């Protein structure tokens, strides 16, 4: 960035212009004064002392006071001029020395003496306090404006009637410290409009270059603005300078950068410094090598510049000025970092739709059509406009009914250039694809922001929209049916279903229990049946025997009576008859045909065991024997009876078994 050189203006335009006018104006009051640039100086600090003769006629000699405790660095330089004020003309001659103190302490310089019209006049004495170097820093040592001619530098623009101190700063006097001078006269500063603010609130930071020297400056390091969103304001090019008074001193001010900042986080944030590289053009005074004239008045009338006035491009060097050279001094400066406290936005009463907007906003929402088919797309345009962090706005949350497919909004910014506070609008275009036919309602679009002025959240909303969606031609649908890919669902099942309700489960129904219990019952019944049958099969012999016994007892019923009565003949006869009768009956042989041989054959034929046959014949023999050998023996009768019962029973069993086998 270029900084225009600060012009230096000459107070004394030209001695020659004035000369003609001197005589016709009446003389003014005579004054002889001593002034210093600063009454309090540092030990190593050069300062000016000026002796001014006003309206002194016929000045013939000038004697400066003895600078015992001071060292003359430069001078005397002489200045001469006149002014006309309210028709009164005044003339002056000034002699300026640049001196430096040798010791610390309070010194009084006696006034200078001059001879005017033959009278000796004396200027007022001045007291100077010399302190150790450093103590007087910051003290502006150019407190008194001293008109001084002959010094200037080329890039002077149009002369302006202003304080002359500006022009003086471009001059580097002998012994003057370059760094101190630069420090004093060039600095950069950052201005912020507030130091405490809310997250998202606007902060205006202005970086300014203050200068009193002609300088060619360029910004080498621009701040990064960590933690902020920055929006630069465009500055006029070439930069426009303005004047500003700082501590009573006038500076030329150039705005380097003006930025609107929006803090993105809370906490203490620091604005980075800006670094400016300056090339300051300083005019260096070289001590006049023409040492001959200590008396400035001799110089006055022996001006070397008169020899070749047009060689010198500078109109100023009329008199015997010290020679000047120009020096470009590089000087790097940076701003002091500025700390800003960022408060988080209040959590209380924060609306759901709040997305970080801070400022003052309005919302308009429009829908491009009210009626469409499922093949078409719908555009919902939401415009948020106002002042605040427009560049950081997030889209309002658009609650779309389930029948729509929503795509990410297209965002268009329309931010007013160089507006401060930042204002403009941001437009969100949502494309909605209706998926479902029918009347659909899009709920109101809601947008919330934080209003710093009222320190509260505000919500703005649009009205709800009603859209009529008609079914489209479904050409897309058909395609999908044939190409099932990973991201589309398969088509519906359209066949005929077996519409059976799943009632209760069979497993837990009583029917299931019954169905399971029934076979168990069947098994039980079968087992009972089987057991009974087994029992019967096991006891058939016994039962038959009992029957046989019964038959025998019945046959021997009469024999038993005879046995009781003791009629042994009748008993044996009856027993024998009963046995024969039984055999006749069982073997189906007529009673008359019975014989032992026949019986034996028949029994053998019926597979009756031999032993029974033997027993049978034994019994029959016994009976016959007893018949023919009467011998009353009750016991024997008893044994025979038992024998008879046994034989008949056994035969009965045997015959029965034989029968069942056959």
């Amino acid at each position, binding site marked *: 960035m270029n900084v225009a050189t600060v012009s230096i203006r000459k107070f004394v335009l030209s001695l020659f212009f004035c000369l003609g006018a001197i005589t016709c104006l009446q003389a003014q009051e005579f004054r002889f004064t001593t002034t210093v640039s600063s009454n309090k100086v540092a030990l190593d600090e050069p300062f000016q002392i000026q002796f001014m003769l006003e309206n002194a006629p016929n000045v013939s000699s000038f004697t400066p006071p003895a600078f015992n405790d001071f060292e003359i660095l430069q001078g005397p330089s002489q200045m001469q001029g006149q002014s006309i004020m309210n028709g009164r003309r005044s003339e002056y001659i000034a002699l300026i020395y640049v001196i430096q103190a040798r010791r610390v302490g309070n010194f009084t310089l006696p006034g200078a003496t001059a001879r005017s019209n033959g009278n000796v006049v004396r200027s007022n004495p001045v007291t100077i306090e010399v302190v150790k170097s450093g103590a007087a820093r910051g003290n502006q040592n150019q407190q008194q404006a001293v008109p001084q001619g002959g010094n200037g530098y080329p890039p002077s623009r149009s002369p302006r009637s202003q304080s002359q101190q500006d022009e003086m700063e471009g001059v580097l006097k002998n012994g003057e410290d370059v760094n101190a001078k630069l420090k004093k006269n060039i600095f950069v500063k950052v201005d912020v409009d507030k130091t405490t603010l809310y997250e998202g609130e606007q902060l205006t930071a202005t970086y300014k270059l203050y200068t009193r020297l002609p300088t060619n400056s360029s910004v080498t390091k621009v701040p990064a603005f960590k933690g902020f969103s920055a929006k630069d304001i465009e500055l006029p090019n070439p930069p426009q300078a303005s004047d500003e008074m700082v501590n009573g001193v006038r500076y030329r001010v150039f705005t380097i950068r003006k930025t609107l900042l929006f803090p993105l986080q809370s906490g203490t944030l620091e604005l980075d410094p800006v670094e400016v590289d300056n090339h300051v053009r300083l005019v260096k005074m070289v001590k006049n090598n023409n040492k001959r004239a200590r008396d400035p008045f001799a110089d006055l009338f022996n001006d070397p510049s008169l020899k070749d006035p047009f060689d010198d491009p500078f109109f100023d060097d009329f008199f015997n000025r010290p020679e000047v050279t120009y020096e470009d001094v590089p000087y790097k400066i940076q701003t002091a970092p500025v700390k800003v406290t960022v408060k988080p936005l209040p959590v209380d009463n924060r609306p759901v739709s709040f997305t970080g907007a801070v400022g003052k906003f309005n919302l308009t929402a429009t829908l491009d059509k009210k009626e469409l088919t499922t093949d078409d797309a719908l555009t919902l345009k939401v415009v948020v406009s106002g002042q605040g962090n427009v560049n950081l706005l997030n889209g309002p949350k658009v609650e779309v009914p389930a029948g729509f497919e929503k795509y990410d909004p297209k965002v268009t910014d329309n931010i007013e250039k160089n507006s401060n506070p930042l204002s403009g609008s941001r437009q969100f275009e949502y494309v909605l694809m209706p998926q479902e036919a*029918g009347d659909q309602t899009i709920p109101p679009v809601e947008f919330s922001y934080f209003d710093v002025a009222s320190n509260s959240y505000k919500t703005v909303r649009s009205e709800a929209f009603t859209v009529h969606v008609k079914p489209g031609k479904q050409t897309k649908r058909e395609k999908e049916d044939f190409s099932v890919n990973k991201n589309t669902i398969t088509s519906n099942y359209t066949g005929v279903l077996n*519409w059976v309700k799943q009632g209760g489960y*069979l497993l837990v129904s009583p029917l299931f229990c019954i169905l399971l219990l029934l076979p168990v019952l*069947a098994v039980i019944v079968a087992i009972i049946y089987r057991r009974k049958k087994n029992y019967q099969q096991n006891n058939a012999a016994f039962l038959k025997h009992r029957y046989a016994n019964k038959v025998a007892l019945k046959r021997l019923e009469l024999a038993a009576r005879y046995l009781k009565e003791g009629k042994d003949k009748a008993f044996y006869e009856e027993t024998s008859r009963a046995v024969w009768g039984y055999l006749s009956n069982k073997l189906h042989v007529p009673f008359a045909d019975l014989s032992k041989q026949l019986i034996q054959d028949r029994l053998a034929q019926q597979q009756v065991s031999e032993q029974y046959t033997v027993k049978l014949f034994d019994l029959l023999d016994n009976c016959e024997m007893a018949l023919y050998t009467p011998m009353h023996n009750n016991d024997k009768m008893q044994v025979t009876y038992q024998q008879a019962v046994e034989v008949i029973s056994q035969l009965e069993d045997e015959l029965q078994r034989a029968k069942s086998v056959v």
Partner: protein
Amino acid sequence: MKKIFSAICSLLLLSHLAGAASAPQQEFEKGNQLFNQKQYSEAATVYQGLIDQGYEQPELFLNAGNAWYKANKTGMAIFNYEMALARDPFNKSATHNLSVANQRVEGYVNDLPLLFFQRWWLHTLHFHSPDGWATGAVILLWLAVAAFVTLLIAPSFRPVLVKWVSGAALVLFLFYLSMGISAYVSANAHDEGIIMGSVVKVKAAPDDESKDMFELHEGVKVQVTDATQEYCKISLPDGKTGWLACAEIKRL
């Protein structure tokens, strides 16, 4: 006018079809038609009505899931697909659509694929319906008993064959009975659920004051491991557990 005419026409067509089709089939076709007209919410309501009547055909669940999916109710869609898969775990459409629907689920954690024996078990379990297993068990028991009774009553009638039949039938009966019980238990297990709320906060303990641990989004399938009156303890396939309001879960 044209609309009314077409409506009447379609009604006539429907009533004509109704002569052949049963009432639920008619309703089902109405749902399909609404679906084709892209009135997905209405279609889903029709299908859901049939489901509420007690019909549990996997195809019905599949169609309902599709309708909910198209109506952007991902939670309901996933629920219906899961229901279809619970009835027919090897339904390809339902498997595919479920995976598509799960793509919409925020924070979806893939289920581990089943191991071979788990697959075999699932295949076996779904070889018959629960009632099929029970019926089979009854038939086999009757067969076994018949053979046994034959053995008892007529021991001399081919005793070896009858014995073998009886033994085999009894073993098969026990198998069918246990499978029937397993199928019944798995069909009536409600220990899984789908998150229905769009964003649900999962808490560390079953009360309102306890701190939120993580969030679940609509459509996430969770295992319900414990429950109080209001809160259900859930666990996720990745091992996270927590409590959330039972009202947010639709149990499968």
